């Protein structure tokens, strides 16, 4: 028995590896801030997450790590946008886009440009969004992992500009790119924009079909904001197609989701839509 135990210990000792040297203190602090920020995001504590990402960004700048600077700047921009702080989101991204001294990886610059386009689009700055999306598109050259997202941003810009046919074409292209990369989130985004564009073009059955596909994906992804958007659009499309029953059903579902996520504005809009004859 003792021999077996000794042999087992010997075998296990072969699996052990010497502990690597402890990382420098600044690196540890950076990693810790990033981990804490990610935990706060998971917990839905966006304000706390922004603080930790800000701290991580500061540490990354202090140790002159371009990759960490870009990563935390982009994350900070995302969280700031969630908090409705568009100015902070832009400021965070400028530490990558306006930084002439650091040499950032192309992928990070592309991500920052795409994020900036999204921030501008959300702020209804169509020309700014188009310019940043174009820069990101040129850097991506149509073959990067963000090709679908860039096309979706461009499709959304076209939709906002009432260029519905162009929006449908771009969204269709985005959907194909996203599907080829199995990117479900961007596939659903593309289908949603495609549905809206078709609805605007009066192609109601096609719009409903695209929106239903988007809803199916978004339900799998379990993102209430997107589910709400899909249901709202489906209600509008069904109403436009003359199917009042389906429109009311989608509307009721959207209303339930709005109430569940405490979206007062969404509740008011949907109630008004449901009351409309």
């Amino acid at each position, binding site marked *: 028995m003792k021999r077996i135990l000794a042999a087992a210990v010997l075998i296990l000792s072969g699996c052990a590896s010497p502990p690597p040297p402890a990382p420098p203190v600044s690196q540890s602090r950076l990693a810790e801030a990033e981990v804490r920020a990610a935990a706060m995001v998971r917990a839905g504590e966006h304000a706390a997450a922004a603080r930790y990402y800000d701290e991580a960004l500061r540490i990354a700048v202090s140790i002159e790590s371009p990759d960490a600077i870009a990563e935390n700047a982009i*994350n900070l921009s*995302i969280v700031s*946008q969630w908090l409705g702080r568009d100015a902070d989101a832009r400021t965070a991204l400028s530490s990558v886009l306006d930084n002439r001294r650091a040499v950032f990886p192309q992928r990070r610059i592309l991500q920052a440009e795409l994020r900036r386009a999204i921030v501008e689009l959300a702020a*209804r700055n169509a020309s700014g969004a188009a310019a940043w999306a174009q820069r990101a598109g040129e850097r991506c050259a149509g073959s990067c992992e963000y090709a679908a997202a860039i096309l979706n941003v461009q499709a959304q810009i076209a939709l906002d500009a009432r260029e519905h046919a162009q929006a449908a074409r771009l969204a269709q292209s985005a959907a194909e790119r996203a599907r080829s990369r199995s990117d479900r989130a*961007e596939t659903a985004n593309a289908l949603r924009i495609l549905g809206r564009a078709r609805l605007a073009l009066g192609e109601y059955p096609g719009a409903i079909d695209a929106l239903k596909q988007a809803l199916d994906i978004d339900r799998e992804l379990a993102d209430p904001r997107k589910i709400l958007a899909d249901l709202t659009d489906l209600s509008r499309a069904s109403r436009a197609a003359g199917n009042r029953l389906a429109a009311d059903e989608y509307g009721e579902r959207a209303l339930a989701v709005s109430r569940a996520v405490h979206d007062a504005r969404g509740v008011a809009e949907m109630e008004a839509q449901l009351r409309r004859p």
Partner: protein
Amino acid sequence: MSPTIAPPVRFSRLVLKVNAFLLVALLLLGAFMGLVAYKQGWFVHQTTIHFLTPNALGINKGMPVKLYGVTVGSVSEMDIAYSGVDVRLAIMSEHLARIPKGSQARFAREAGVIGAGVINIVPKAGGGPPLEAGERIDFEASRGIAEMFDDFRKQAGPAFNELKQVLSDMRRSKEDVTAALSALRAEIDALPETHKALRQLLGTTDRAVADVSRQAAATLRAAERAVETAERAARGVEVAVPLLAGKLATSLDSLDAATGQLRKTGEEAQDTLRRARPILERGETAAREAGDVIGAAKRVWPLSDSFKENGEKMLPIDSFEGSRK
């Protein structure tokens, strides 16, 4: 004329004996073949169903097919099809009624991840109409140990991350605890001085109380004299002053008792803190050592893999954020 040759006695009825031997041998052979055929299920009516698998690794012809752990058939044929391998299962017809449409075939091993491979039929929950001959069922390929470990890692990942967070918090809070313990130790070191000061204070209070007593006695005496002098003029005052003096004496007694109690309490507190000091020192050492052990464990296989930072810590860039407002 030649004499007739008589066969030897030992070979009498030889043909009969040979025929009997051959008959018995044939009977035994037939019985053996019958037994084999019975074992192979040749006398049982069987129905064929099939499934398609992209990879037939581990599946063999003759492999048992089990339903609820009972053998109900076997793999009868395997043919390469357009999109994989078409595997046919010969199922005893009497059991086919227990396999509803929508059931699933799975490759499994009898003892978990080791043991003989079998095709396990998982009936569709809720039942339904039974399968028919030649019908196709879905097949779920088995998962290897590597995939199982991978799944485990994926599932255990969030738990390890939480653990890591807790450890990180512990490490951070350890610094605070250390600082607090150091401050507490400094306070404990200063206790003798504090105690000395307290004793001086108590001594001073004692003296003050004695002075007050003396002064009160003198005052009483003066009051008595005053009372004697004013006895006739103020009879009411003569009655009131002794009462007041009694109350003052009672108050002084109470103050003296409280001072004694305060001294006793201070001594007890000093004793308690003296006893707690080694415990606090041991706690500090234990916290420091626990931190070292956790740090070392985090760097040693197999825990090190679980504590590795994720390569990509980026939040997803979602174009949906552009249409939020």
